[in-house]
């Protein structure tokens, strides 16, 4: 197989942590509208985006996820009041660490998708999955020295 072919055949593995109240609902809406969404994403439901801590994201990344999506309610809409504000700060720290280490921070994405935004959900997931496709596999997957 040539490198190019390989590239073409690459189906990324993306893990999406979706907040139960907004983004998970948006995913349902997208589903019931039968929008086509990239199978690259595997959804993991959490109650709130603030539940997602650094270690969970790092583990996911070092376990070889090609992309990680954290998605929750828009700021101000958190079902629990202010969880997503904290989530946003934690995300910013991790993003900065990845940036500082040149670990392709674009593999980590935070998105706000509300329950009525089924289309946006599809767009976000598909765009992210395209972006990751273009980026190629998480380099850790080719390495036996980690």
């Amino acid at each position, binding site marked *: 197989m040539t490198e190019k072919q390989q590239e073409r055949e690459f189906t990324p593995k993306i893990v999406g942590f979706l907040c139960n109240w907004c983004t998970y609902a948006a995913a349902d809406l997208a589903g019931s509208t039968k929008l086509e969404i990239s199978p690259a994403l595997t959804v993991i439901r959490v109650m709130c985006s603030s539940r997602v801590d650094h270690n969970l994201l790092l583990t996911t990344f070092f376990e070889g996820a090609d992309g990680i999506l954290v998605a929750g309610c828009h700021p101000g809409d958190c079902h629990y009041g202010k969880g997503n*504000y904290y989530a946003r700060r*934690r995300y910013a*720290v991790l993003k900065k*660490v990845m940036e500082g280490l040149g670990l392709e921070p674009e593999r980590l994405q935070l998105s706000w998708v509300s329950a009525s935004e089924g289309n946006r959900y599809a767009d976000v997931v598909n765009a992210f999955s395209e972006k990751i496709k273009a980026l190629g596999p998480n380099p850790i997957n080719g390495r036996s020295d*980690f």
Partner: protein
Amino acid sequence: MQGASLKAVDGIKGVIRDFLRKALESEAADAVLVPVRTPAKDSYAWILTNDPALLDEAGPLAPTMPVQGAKALKSLTRKGQGTARVIAVMRPCEVRAAVELSKLNQVHLDNIILLSYDCIGAVPLQDYVGEPAGSEERFDSMLEARKTEESAVKPVCGICVDFSLVDSDIHLGLIGLAGESALLIPNSEKGGALLEAMGIACEEDISGWMQAVSGLKAEREDKRSKALAETGASLQGFDGLHAAFADCVGCHNCQSACPICYCRQCYFDSEVARRDPAALLDTAIARGGIAFPGDRVMFHTGRMAHMSLSCVSCGQCSDACPVSIPVADIFSYMADLTQATFEYAAGRDDGEPLPLRQYREDEVEKVHEIVKGAEEEEVAHE
């Protein structure tokens, strides 16, 4: 701000010993926490004492920093504040760590008087224990010249910009002062009250000293940004990261020596972080192999995410590393990066809340940029 000029008979160390003795004798303080040389004369340890006579053996300006002072303070005050007023003689980075720990409720500073000084750096621990007598000599000559010799101190000391006045109660100015004199500067109400109780009047002009300090600071800032940029460049990507930590043996000494890593048990040593045997084997099969000691890079990056916001660049991690990984340089680099994101500086001010304990609805610019970036890209795609 004004200070009191102190003339010493017995070198700078003598100035501090004298001051501490007086503080105990005048009952302005109940105890002091200072480094004292170990009986084998091969290191220093933190000693809490109320006995003025014992201070003769104290090395308040220890050449090396075996245990970060904030950790000593933590062991003393983690469970709360007593009534005894304790003067702790600590380097600026130790004071800053103590301030961070105070925010994290691991240190209680109410009855602690932090006495700090212009720091000329610390000799790397392994250098010191390898050659204690020589290190003492070298340090003393640096102290006399009041000038840092970069080859003799830890790399982070050479690029330290917070070597002088920090959030202490009393500061001892040394840099740029002639002869054996030192400037005692009250730096908080508590500190001022102590000096007053000891009958020390602070009426000396300190602008000369301040000028010398800011001069050095400017010099250091320049050096620091260059050095950190270099570190950053060496780290890039999985290759860089792997190279940096290739020799890591997974002992986690860096974490346990770190004053900021206050967890009882590091998450990465915990049961939760352990992967089950089958999962490890699966990963090995998928990648062709995995490397042990396991999760080394994950540990270091995880620690960056967890504590770089509070990192004070004291260099203890490098001191504790048995395989000479420049952990401190790396963390210092990361600390500058993450702290700038939140317009935060670790240990700058006890009143400044920890970034992850608060939020703003309209985020500070850099956080906003990070999050905004992702949002805009999506919209553009639509």
